[in-house]
């Protein structure tokens, strides 16, 4: 990537959840960067910590959570330790988020125009009439047909795809510098998903808005992201460009995850399943957290804690054998 300053720089982020009996480290030493206008994919399975990472950036962690270490730099400011009020000002204006289920994220008792316009009233002091006009304009821009009429609809009157478009219209109303999209198309049908992904790409192109795309779907990541961060069990296990991650994954987890997906482009005889299941924060394994499921694990993986380390060409991995694996792959090709 360029040497420009990153827009978002999460560095060594550690987050704990305190329950009655336990103190769970759900995120440990998570680092990632997003540059202006860049689409970064954050991928992982359930329990990997990808959503907690997004919530930390947005300052929307639940009350039981605590940032126990690390920093979150955004557009030159430090976000950890920022007051709720300051965070609230930032949210919506410079940074916005869309979620998986647009129905639960929209307020059922207000029209969609009111909800899209609210942020403009809040952050820019727009009058209700100005906010409404802008809302209609935004709805048309995100591809909602007959926007002037639909603007007066309530969320339940819209389909799932249209609700997600409304969420996107809300999110981009203030032209934020960063959009955090947490499984934005997971609840949608595949033909509607394709429309929403196209829309997100074109908004990025139009406004130079950076997108942190959080999903379990490697297909969506492959089609959208320029850089990819792979998480497993509360840690980043690999980071690199989309080409590096998909063509030459350095971490065994990434490699296996890609191979476990059944393709619609060719018939696969048998899938390479990863044995076992993803660990929960109550019982993250010692040593490398992936070692109980890793077919290549040796003694060192079981005993020695692994750190994310730099590899050639700007990528990084948490597997101590990655360099060797990449060299072997190069030698073999």
């Amino acid at each position: 990537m360029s040497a420009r300053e990153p827009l978002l720089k999460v560095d060594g982020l550690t987050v704990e959840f305190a329950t009655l009996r336990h103190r769970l480290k759900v995120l440990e030493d998570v680092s990632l960067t997003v540059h202006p206008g860049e689409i970064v994919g954050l991928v992982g399975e359930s329990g990997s910590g990808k959503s907690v990472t997004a919530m930390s950036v947005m300052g929307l962690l639940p009350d039981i959570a605590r940032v126990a270490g690390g920093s979150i730099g955004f557009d030159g400011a430090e976000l950890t330790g920022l007051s709720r009020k300051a965070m609230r000002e930032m949210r919506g204006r410079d940074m916005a988020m869309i979620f998986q289920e647009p129905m639960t994220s929209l307020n059922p008792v207000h029209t969609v125009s009111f909800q899209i316009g609210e942020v403009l009233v809040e952050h820019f002091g727009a009058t209700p009439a100005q906010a409404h006009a802008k809302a209609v304009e935004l709805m048309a821009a995100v591809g909602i047909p007959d926007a002037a009429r639909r603007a007066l609809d309530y969320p339940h009157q819209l389909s799932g795809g249209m609700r997600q478009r409304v969420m996107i219209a809300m999110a981009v109303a203030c032209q934020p510098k960063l959009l955090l999209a947490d499984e934005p198309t997971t609840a949608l049908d595949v033909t509607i998903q394709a429309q929403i992904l196209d829309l997100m790409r074109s908004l990025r192109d139009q406004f130079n808005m950076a997108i942190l795309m959080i999903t379990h779907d490697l297909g969506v990541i492959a089609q959208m992201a320029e850089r990819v961060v792979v998480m497993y069990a509360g840690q980043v296990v690999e980071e690199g460009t989309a080409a590096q991650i998909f063509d030459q994954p350095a971490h065994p987890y990434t490699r296996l995850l890609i191979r476990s997906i059944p393709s619609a482009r060719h018939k696969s005889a048998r899938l390479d399943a990863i044995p076992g299941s993803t660990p929960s924060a109550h019982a993250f394994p010692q040593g490398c957290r992936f070692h109980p499921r890793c077919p290549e694990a040796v003694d060192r993986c079981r005993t020695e804690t692994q750190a994310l380390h730099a590899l050639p060409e700007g990528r990084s991995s948490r597997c101590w054998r990655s360099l060797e694996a990449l060299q072997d792959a190069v030698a073999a090709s």
Partner: protein
Amino acid sequence: MTAPLLEVRDLTKAFVVERSLLGAQRATLRAVHNVSFAMAPGETLGIVGESGCGKTTLGRLILRLLEPTEGHIRFDGQDITHFSHRQMRGLRQDIQVVFQDPFSSLNPRLTVRAIIGEPLSNFGFSAAEITRRVGEVMEVVGLQPDTMDRNPHAFSGGQRQRIGIARALALRPKLIVCDEAVSALDVSIQAQILNLLADIQQEFGLTLLFISHNLGVIRHVSHRIAVMYLGEIVELATERDLFENPLHPYTRALISAVPEADIHERTERVPLDGEIPSPVNPPPGCPFHTRCPIARPRCGTELPDYREWSPGRMVRCHFPGEALPTFAETATERALP
């Protein structure tokens, strides 16, 4: 084809969604309309489509959890369309189901022994026999038989889906309906369950009706595939024909919309505007004409026949196989470093 195990003819299910004060039907939702297909023993037929296409209703009709409005279902040589509840109980030995959600489809108060053994006890097996069969079937699906006295919450999502499969297998059925059986699972676990289903199909000669919205999963598991749209099968073909040479414009748009986990696979997407129309008062003519990139006036008035295009290959379109416009992704081309 050898004698089919399951044969469905002109199956239709309409739900009354609104009645007038006097009880006359005002609006009906046509969930499944004129669906016909046959399944050979040992075959996997995939049913794929987006939400609201009727795939789950179709599965429930075959399981006879819903009463068909019209049409016939034959299973193993018998017409079961109007089997009574009691007659269906006898058939449960041969037709089983695996549901999507391994968290809500298992009773949390029961032990795994009771969950897997329930169908067996319904058929009068002794306690000792049940324990033996439960242990056996747990081993088949990769669970430790010594965990059979635990409750479902002690198991992970993937293990719970194995419990659901073990329960379906316990009576050694001929047909299993899998309704989004792997959709709630992480991909690494999904692959385990898909491999397991392939193994048990091989081992027991099972016939699988596999319902899913996921085209990758459908391609992987199926021998033949039916694509549904707004209650109708719009195309039915072998896995290879359907994916390599799709005839129906909807099939082609659907396949082209799948995001592949491969950065070199950026196919030319068939642009598909709009959304699926409501199945209450569906559009006249071809159900797909409102979104079809090659629709002509005829498509808006006349429902195409469900016709045999080539031996065994069915399609419901006036203009199957016609060239479609594609949508060059030039505007969204990514700058790969």
